[in-house]
């Protein structure tokens, strides 16, 4: 653990190893955050079962300081989108994301959360949560094995290591904008798309032709 805390290039005498660290503000800030990521207790589908197994004794998320699963979005740092995102569920997911305090991260677990997976063509399926909220790490698999999820979490730690207090958005002056919550209409509607929807529905255009698809 202390390797990631000490800034390279400084000699620390042997007798002080583990007692004294020479580091930067960024490093100690990230070191603290990367080792205590609290995921949200939030399961969507089959992938959630593998997530539970990852948290259980055999794979043991606690080794990374991530075992504290919180049911409330207010107390969490990480949303693991573990499963198929449906249109009916996406307003709630966006709302949960908005309720998480910054810094917040999103990990798309599995094929479904990353891009719709086997159910992509479904009429109630959102083809990837990144259509609505920003995603930091994608973990492939259907479901990803616990090892794969752990790998994804380690990648997230690496991402955190690279962040700097000077640039992170949550220390900017203005508060960050919440993501508009989609609305359940005749189909799911993203408020950001309203103008475009009107363009299409109020003056209908010809649907995309077969030939164009295979062109």
């Amino acid at each position, binding site marked *: 653990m202390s390797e990631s805390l000490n800034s390279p290039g400084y000699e620390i005498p042997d007798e002080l190893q583990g007692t004294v660290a020479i580091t930067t503000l960024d490093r100690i800030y990230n070191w603290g955050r990367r080792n205590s990521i609290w995921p949200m*207790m*939030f*399961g*969507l*589908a*089959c992938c*959630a*079962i*593998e997530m*539970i*197994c990852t948290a*259980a*004794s*055999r794979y043991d998320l606690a080794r990374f300081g991530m075992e504290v699963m919180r*049911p409330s979005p207010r107390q969490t740092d990480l949303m693991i989108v573990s*499963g*198929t995102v*449906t249109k*009916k*569920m996406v307003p*709630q997911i966006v709302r*949960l994301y908005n309720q998480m305090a910054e810094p917040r991260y999103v990990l798309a677990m599995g094929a479904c959360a990353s891009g719709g997976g*086997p*159910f*992509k*063509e*479904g*009429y*109630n*399926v*959102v*083809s990837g949560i990144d*259509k609505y909220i920003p995603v930091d790490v994608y973990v492939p698999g*259907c*479901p990803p*094995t616990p090892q794969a999820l752990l790998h994804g979490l380690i990648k997230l730690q690496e991402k955190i290591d690279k962040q700097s207090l000077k640039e992170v958005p949550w220390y900017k002056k203005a508060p960050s904008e919440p993501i508009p919550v989609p*609305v*359940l*209409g*005749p*189909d*799911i*509607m*993203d408020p950001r*798309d*309203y103008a*475009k*929807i*009107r363009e*299409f*529905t*109020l003056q*209908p*255009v010809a649907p*995309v032709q077969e030939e*164009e*698809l*295979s062109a």
Partner: protein
Amino acid sequence: MTEQTLAPALNLEERFGDWVTPDTRKGYEGYLVAPEHLTDFATALRDEFGYDYLASLTAVDYLPEGKMEVVYHVSQSTGGAPLVFKVQVPREDPVTVPSLVPVYPGAEFQEREAWDLMGIRFEGHPDLRRILMWEGFEGHPLRKDWKEAYYEADTKPFKSRWPAGQIHRVEDTLPFGKNVKYPDGFDPEKWTPVEEEALYASLKRVPSEGDLPTEQIIVNLGPQHPSTHGVFRMAVTLDGETIVDLKPVMGYLHRNHEKIGERNTYLMNIPFTDRLDYLSSLSNNFGYVLAVEKLMGIKPPERAEYIRVIMAELTRIQNHLFAIGMFLNDLGAFFTPSLYAIEERELILDTFEAVTGSRMRCNYMRFGGVARDFPPGQLERIRDLVFNRLPAKVDEFDAYLTNNEIVRARCEGVGVLTPEQAIAYSTCGPVLRASGVPYDLRRADPYSIYDRFDFDVAVRYHGDVYDRYLVRMDEIRQSIRILQQAVEQIPEGPVVTGKQQYQVRVPAGEAYGRVEGPKGELGFYVVSNGKPNPWRYHVRAPSFINLTALAEMCKGNKIADAVIILGSIDIVLGETDR
């Protein structure tokens, strides 16, 4: 046993005259009932012939013939093969059929589903709202002429992917970059969502008794709630802490299993069934291949039958372990019992991984057998598991939990379902058996080779949460018994009949294949028109239908108990919502 499997000699025509006509289409069975006599027919069937259990209700859209058909499978709760009857109505809106909720309360959610997805109005239904999609959604998606935004062709394999090998992202060809579509003339600015209002309006509010007038409040549990086992939601009316009415809200994981399944070829559907009840993929495989094998008229070889039973029973054990662990979570014993349960489950998952290549998404059974034989040495490992490890661990579980004072105090007498209610609401699996109805398809209508094994049907008589827990414990023990016999008896030989093909030939007709899954009667209703893709593919999902009784179990209990009552049903959302 054999008498039970034979369909009872029924002479319905004699009793009902011109109300019924035998279904003479090739490959079909059962009776067609005139819509105007449906309610009387069903009542008589229930009261005179003992068909008191509505197993499955679904609809088929026969677009080319211009007809809609509602298909009912009913059983006797004492056992035996199901009886199927159908109602046909012209395919012109509004399509209406009398509701059977007054006769079989278990039809409630299934009729709502048929309304939601097929657009069939059930006259006399107490609360006909959409169930999987939301109120306000445009169209009825399972109709054959309804097309989603990502529509490419009626059936797979899509020409653009195979053989052309063209790869494109569908969303790139769509105006919004997402799979959404809106009706012409629709203005999003003028839209007011109607879903929530319709839900709250459907909740009962009874005037409070006594001198102290109290206000009743509506509380939502879920869809994001730590104890609802996934994305499930309950809207509850409360009087103080007491539940007055409760409506389950589902569809948050509706993944369009059936629409996709009708587009897939028969073989392509096997991996999709894995994702129904995602804890027990092998049981799902089992039910589906049984249905298609019925249509094809083939049987797997002996060894494959044994392998199927071994895998299905291991699945049951790991499912029940997980269910018990999660149930203890709901009781507040947070995660420690689950850790014990998951430890054992991992051992079974190792077996699955060794045999099928995957821990959870096994995709293992095939029409006429299984995909591959056990790898060398695997049978010995299973033997060790079922003779040594698991029996000891179940005893350990028992010692820790069964007589635990808190478990008993919280579970006994809570969420009671009487046997009559359990049958009427079409509950199945451990929920039904905990209410004193010894109905287990492995005995009631034996399939595969279950008639060869010596085991008892687990049954308990109080119908409360505690008995449901006990039934699961008993069932683990019985499964271990079956496994012990199966691993001793399993013969050598091939594991699949004939040559395996990507495109199987399935003769036209209908079939209903059902197995006793860990959660109850898991049925697959498949209609083939002789083409490479099923015309209709319906899943009778035990988790979904068991929820019909949830409100009844919860009423009068405290809000905190709703959580454990739900936990005691053991639902999996992948199957509930499909």
